[in-house]
């Protein structure tokens, strides 16, 4: 503020109203370093590929090919009545695989209903991962075994779980990171906001990974948000936002690995937005022709994650016909095994309905369980 010359007589009232900052105000975080880049990060097709570890590139390729086949197989299983429903990640494999490979063994993955592929890439048995979608139980695996939280259907509700788990790990002194996956539509939910806010306030070691695949069922992003990008939302919480080409597996892996490393070192949470596209309909039960044009899909097919990586590796001499064949064969073996195992009728355990409601069954549930048991026995006799 400019000081006036002391020779000038000032009326008291005027000095009393000299503007000063509000007493409680202090400058807080500088937003500039938190802002996402103007364009999504790409590695494929740039010189940066040369810095990538060829073993990682080959691994990504093999996983992407396997992931593509897994999506096709799971979709086929819906047609054969072996899965009740399947939300496909065809076209989003780079995101699914990139997320899984960015984590260490001890880390935790918090998938949404769409992310069975990420869970499988993390080591989960595909049949267990698909249990929810087959319908013989909800979560088909022990979450602690591979540190994969239950596939989460209520949108964005898994995000605060990831924050709480990461926070608890940090309190305990474990260097564990949680990576939570969510869709573009899910970012409109209140739990998205609350999770990011808690994470930033607590500086929890968590990475929020948004797959912006263009749609929430039929609703395009323009109807979800007026934000400059979803990554920009990070700034409001005081965490960095990163934008990445979600069909560039190397870029996705790089951005997520950086965010995970940052979280592990105590740097706090990051929001990553991957720009990708859902090639298939929302699920096998959806008709995408009602809300999008074929031309749009074709444009994205030209920017296919498997294709982009395959071209790059081939051009760099890291992949030949033999490598392609080996990847395809491995994927085919996986698909054949999955098909065979899913074609066996699951063993249903109706009495389990009562076993896991409480640690100890209540008297009321014991009565109801006895009723069902009697009904099952009667059914057995009548057969």
């Amino acid at each position: 503020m400019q000081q006036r010359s002391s020779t000038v007589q000032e009326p008291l009232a005027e000095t009393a109203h000299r503007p000063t900052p509000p007493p409680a105000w202090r400058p807080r975080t500088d937003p500039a370093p938190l802002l996402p880049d103007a364009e999504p990060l790409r590695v494929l097709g740039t010189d940066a590929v040369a810095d990538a570890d060829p073993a990682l590139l080959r691994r990504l390729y093999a996983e992407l090919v396997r992931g593509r086949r897994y999506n096709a197989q799971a979709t086929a299983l819906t047609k054969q009545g072996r899965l009740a429903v399947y939300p496909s990640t065809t076209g989003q494999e780079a995101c699914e695989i990139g997320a899984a490979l960015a984590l260490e063994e001890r880390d935790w993955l918090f998938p949404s209903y769409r992310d069975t592929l990420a869970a499988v890439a993390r080591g989960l048995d595909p049949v267990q991962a698909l249990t929810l979608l087959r319908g013989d139980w909800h979560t088909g695996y022990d979450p602690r075994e591979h540190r994969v939280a239950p596939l989460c259907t209520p949108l964005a509700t898994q995000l605060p779980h990831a924050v709480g788990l990461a926070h608890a790990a940090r309190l305990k002194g474990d260097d564990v990171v949680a990576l939570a996956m969510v869709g573009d539509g899910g970012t409109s939910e209140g739990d998205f906001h609350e999770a990011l806010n808690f994470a930033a306030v607590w500086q929890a070691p968590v990475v929020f990974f948004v797959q912006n695949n263009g749609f929430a069922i039929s609703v395009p992003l323009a109807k979800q948000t007026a934000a400059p990008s979803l990554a920009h939302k990070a700034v409001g919480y005081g965490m960095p936002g990163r934008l990445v080409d979600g069909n560039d597996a190397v870029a996705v892996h790089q951005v997520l690995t950086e965010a995970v490393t940052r979280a592990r070192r105590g740097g706090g949470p990051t929001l990553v937005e991957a720009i990708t596209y859902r090639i298939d309909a929302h699920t096998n039960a959806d008709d995408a022709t009602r809300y999008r044009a074929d031309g749009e899909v074709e444009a994205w097919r030209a920017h296919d994650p498997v294709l982009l990586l395959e071209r790059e590796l081939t051009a760099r001499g890291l992949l030949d016909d033999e490598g392609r064949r080996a990847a395809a064969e491995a994927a085919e073996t996986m698909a054949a095994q999955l098909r065979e195992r899913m074609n066996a009728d699951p063993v249903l355990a109706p009495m389990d309905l009562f076993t896991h409601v409480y640690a100890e069954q209540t008297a009321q549930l014991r009565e109801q369980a006895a009723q069902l048991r009697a009904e099952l026995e009667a059914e057995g006799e009548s057969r």
Partner: protein
Amino acid sequence: MTTATTGAAAAKAAGRAKPATMAQALQRAMRDAMAEDPTVHVMGEDVGTLGGVFRVTDGLAKEFGEDRCTDTPLAEAGILGTAVGMAMYGLRPVVEMQFDAFAYPAFEQLVSHVAKMRNRTRGAMPMPMVIRVPYGGGIGGVEHHSDSSEIYYMATPGLHVVTPATVEDAYGLLRAAIASDDPVVFLEPKRLYWSKSDWSPEAPARVEPIGKAVVRRPGTSATLITYGPSLPVCLEAAEAATAEGWDLEVVDLRSLVPFDDETVAASVRRTGRAVVVHESGGFAGPGAEIAARVTERCFHHLEAPVLRVAGFDIPYPPPMLERHHLPGVDRILDAVARLQWEAGN
């Protein structure tokens, strides 16, 4: 889980009894649990420095540090949602919701995750946590501060729903709730926060098993079935009823889920008549379930239909009108009078 002596008796015997409030007993329960078990974490709005708006968490942040008693951001879904993640990692969160009606934003987390996680994961991932909710009216609160929200929780499989009505139970039931491997919605009748008893925190205190009702006043004419904030009203009504020649038994449910059919039915079979009393609305309220259960079990012992004295089926009234809404002694006695006492009925 149960020690031999009751807090009050032992304290008296030791000559150390001094009146304690329900709020103090609740605080003491959390304090003792935190001291015994490092995985117990208290979290909520204003629970740290301030000690909660009802002072129930007073001193916990100071004694155990802010990592164990945490002032969270102001977002109930976020509080409960992060508590789920903490429980997944092996902690035992004790969450405070500031008021009954302000727990509603957390409903999705409660219903879809807290209540179901054990079941969804076939027992692999239990959710040991307590959600403390100050509830009910009678404190002159303006709107959104006096709801009886118990029925929402009762209707959600996977939750235990517990509510103390005495200072002793406040301690004992909260200890049991924190020790439980299942999620417990712990409803604290806020108008009883300042109720006192000779219970002394210094004395060995009893941990109550969850799921057991208790006969607070033995009687022979009829049973008043109640819980939480309505217990003192029922006891008062039972005293007043003696002037009419009725000797009323009063059952304090203490646990709404699981429900103690045995204690309730045994009492009604003895007395042959029953009135359910609660602040919650009558239509599809807790009394509807209780009356049905009693009828199913005691039909041949009943001399009259099971009646309900409940709050009206209206949004909770403004403070100057709340006395018309809350079940009082007269309304209870009126119901008792309608229990078909005429000979030959």
